[in-house]
């Protein structure tokens, strides 16, 4: 459970409680995702794993403060933040380029939550907590690249889109942040960040595209 979630609250009104809202953290794909096999039978060509309960902070340089932001990032993460479309892994976070002078910090467990990052970037960057505003889908398998080619105009050939490559782009008219993580089991892993409210729509599109190859669907809390 992310520490930025508020477990519950009551709203007192005229001395009596009229409603009790439960602020429960749920994945935007909670309804749409059905774990297990999907589509063509046999060995699955595509594995879709939704990653849940992550911390995601967008860091955007204030006007004229890009170099100060870069220094703050270096101090915080021990590596330079990406200045071109790529992702950079640290021991406990991934920094993903999201536009000129801006990047995402993806992590778990609150160490790089917005509260934790705020002091270091004070004055140089504006921070925005996106932890509950995006869904994160990890796509792998023998047919992952073939399937993504139906949805994306980005060239995902390994010579062009290697480990660590990233892109701010669109799939099926939906804005996404796409980046290639570390290979797993000798296979490429593509990560997709999508706005929470568009996640279900894109999920169905991805399923339609992947069905012919056979899909294994799961969710995980491991980044």
């Amino acid at each position, binding site marked *: 459970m992310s520490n930025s979630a508020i477990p519950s609250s009551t709203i007192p009104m005229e001395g009596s409680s009229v409603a009790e809202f439960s602020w429960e953290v749920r994945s935007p794909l909670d309804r749409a995702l059905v774990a297990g096999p999907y589509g063509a039978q046999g060995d699955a060509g595509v594995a879709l794993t939704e990653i849940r309960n992550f911390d995601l902070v967008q860091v955007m340089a204030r*006007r004229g403060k*890009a170099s100060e932001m870069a220094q703050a990032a270096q101090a915080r993460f021990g590596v330079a933040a990406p200045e071109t479309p790529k992702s950079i892994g640290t021991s406990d976070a991934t920094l993903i380029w999201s536009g*000129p*002078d801006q990047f995402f910090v993806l992590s778990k467990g609150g160490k790089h939550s917005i509260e934790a990052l705020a002091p270091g970037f004070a004055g140089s960057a504006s921070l925005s907590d996106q932890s509950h505003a995006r869904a994160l889908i990890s796509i792998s398998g023998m047919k992952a690249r073939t399937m993504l080619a139906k949805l994306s*105009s980005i060239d995902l050939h390994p010579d062009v889109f290697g480990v660590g490559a990233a*892109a*701010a*782009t*669109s799939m099926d*008219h939906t804005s996404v942040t796409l980046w290639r993580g570390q290979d797993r089991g000798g296979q490429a892993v593509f990560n997709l960040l999508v706005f929470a409210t568009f996640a279900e729509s894109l999920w169905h599109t991805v399923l339609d595209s992947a069905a012919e190859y056979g899909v294994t669907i799961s969710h995980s809390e491991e980044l």
Partner: protein
Amino acid sequence: MRIVCPFCGERELGEFTYLGDAKPQRPAADAGEEAVYDYVYLRDNIAGVMNEHWYHGAGCRAWLKVTRNTLTHEISAVEPAAGAGAAKVGA
């Protein structure tokens, strides 16, 4: 038509939104009706090479200044528009 975004690289047209001629400048508040009419309604509507504003909305969300030939759709230059990228331009 594809546009080579200076931040993202070559991208398909569907990721961009068009604003139009980059030349008109918003007149000063006291410039008078003629100047506002000219700015809002009149166009050079160039047949040939034109500087335009495009927005990479489905990508890095930067405003771009694109030099494009309206007769051929050939794009000869793309650069960040003033203000795109908080630090690099127009700081």
